[in-house]
């Protein structure tokens, strides 16, 4: 039995060949065109290449479609689900802690309290209800952690430069806010800078507030960790590079180490201002 892509494939059905192209393997190449003719899969070399062409075209198109379904859309849903899980767990926690406080004397606050209650052994019908409710909240927290792991695993292949620059979770958040990697790649960097700050921007347009300098990228150390008077420059520089990263990820998928080095340099320059200021 040969390892050739056409082994077991139906010569008249490019789809069956495509599946083999995608999933097959061989320890080493061989003279496949000659083997295919010998095996009666192809009439001659020309026929072989025509069949190979149909199968590789079908395989590549399917694989691309599948991988694209698998990446940015999945990341966007996962990060929204992660936020939902977190927010809902917090809501349940509040209820659990308040309720449990009427039954037990020593309930820690917040999410710790929930884990504590969930681990207890209920003795009355009311305790049984509150422990069961706490267990749901704990399950949700575990789900949130699993979603985060999923994002951390997928983001580096779906958007290698964006994930490296922003971290996997923030990369997923930006993709979700933009509605996908392609729309994110097409947004000007000024828009990327305020993604997630829509409420604040709306207030500004209504004349009720100053122009927002940063959206969700504020959560990143590059912005949050910069002193307030330099945060605008930091957010602008960061958003500029994030836009470039999104474009490279969308249009080429190529990992560009130099891009990350440039951003690190730029950030160092901005932060150096604070040190100079301190010397004055």
């Amino acid at each position, binding site marked *: 039995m040969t390892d050739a892509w056409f082994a077991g494939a139906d010569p008249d059905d490019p789809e069956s060949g495509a599946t083999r192209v995608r999933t097959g393997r061989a320890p080493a190449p061989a003279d496949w065109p000659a083997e295919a003719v010998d095996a009666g899969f192809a009439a001659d070399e020309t026929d072989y290449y025509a069949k190979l062409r149909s199968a590789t075209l079908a395989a590549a198109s399917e*694989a*691309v479609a599948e991988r694209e379904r698998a990446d940015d859309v999945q990341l966007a849903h996962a990060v929204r689900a992660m936020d939902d899980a977190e927010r809902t767990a917090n809501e349940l926690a509040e209820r659990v802690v308040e309720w449990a406080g009427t039954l037990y004397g020593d309930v820690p606050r917040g999410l710790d309290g929930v884990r504590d209650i969930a681990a207890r052994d209920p003795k009355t019908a009311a305790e049984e209800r509150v422990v069961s409710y706490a267990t749901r909240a704990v399950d949700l927290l575990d789900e949130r952690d699993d979603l985060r792991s999923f994002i951390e695993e997928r983001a580096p292949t779906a958007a290698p430069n964006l994930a490296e620059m922003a971290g996997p979770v923030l990369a997923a958040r930006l993709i979700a806010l933009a509605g996908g990697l392609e729309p994110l790649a097409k947004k000007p960097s000024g828009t990327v800078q305020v993604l997630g700050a829509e409420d604040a921007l709306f207030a500004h347009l209504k004349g009720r507030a100053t122009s927002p300098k940063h959206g969700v990228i504020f959560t990143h150390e590059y912005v949050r960790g910069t002193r307030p008077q330099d945060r605008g420059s930091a957010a602008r520089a960061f958003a500029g590079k994030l836009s470039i990263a999104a474009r490279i990820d969308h249009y080429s998928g190529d990992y560009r180490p130099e891009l990350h080095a440039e951003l690190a340099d730029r950030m160092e320059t901005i932060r150096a201002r604070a040190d100079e200021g301190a010397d004055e």
Partner: protein
Amino acid sequence: MSDDSGLPDGVERRTFGGRERLSTRGAQVYGEPVDADGWRAWDAGRSKLGAMLELGMDTGLVGGESVLYLGAASGTTVSHVADFAGPTYAVEFAPRPVRDLVGVAEDRDNLFPLLKDARDPESYAHVVEAGIDCLVMDVATRGQATVAVRNRQFLADDGRLLMAVKARSEDVTADPDDVFDGVVAELDSAYELLETARLDRFHADHLGIVARPK
């Protein structure tokens, strides 16, 4: 008269916008200029193999050969290769560029796109034939020499490796010359070097390599 010596059959220097440029004949791909006879300009600034030909490196290409191209991206260069070569296998591991590559292959009978990782040749050895005449490599990723060594098994004994090494892909901070020395040293286990040239006139900090299997 233009001098087409050293160029494979199917590649010619022709005049586009008053300037002599390399060109091949085939369906347009990336908005490159096309002349009245259907020849399309091959932009050496967007193609490392184009730059190697422009710089007069002895690639050994004659036209009609079988080619394994690693790092095909959206098909800019490999489209020209398929215009003058024989069966052309194009490996690229990023899905998005492969979407465009499929479009390029649809216009050509001899171009076979493969969404595969060049670091894992066993994942396409059941498709790519043995005895390939020319292995072209432009993967711009860390470990370029390792990829070349692993893919040597596809090459005919008298075949050629045509490789573009991007210094910054290996190490952003290192001196490009040191990076190139390291790559050349690693290639030595599997290849005999025939020629190297800096491609800087067209591509900063890139080295072009012509080699044959040992």
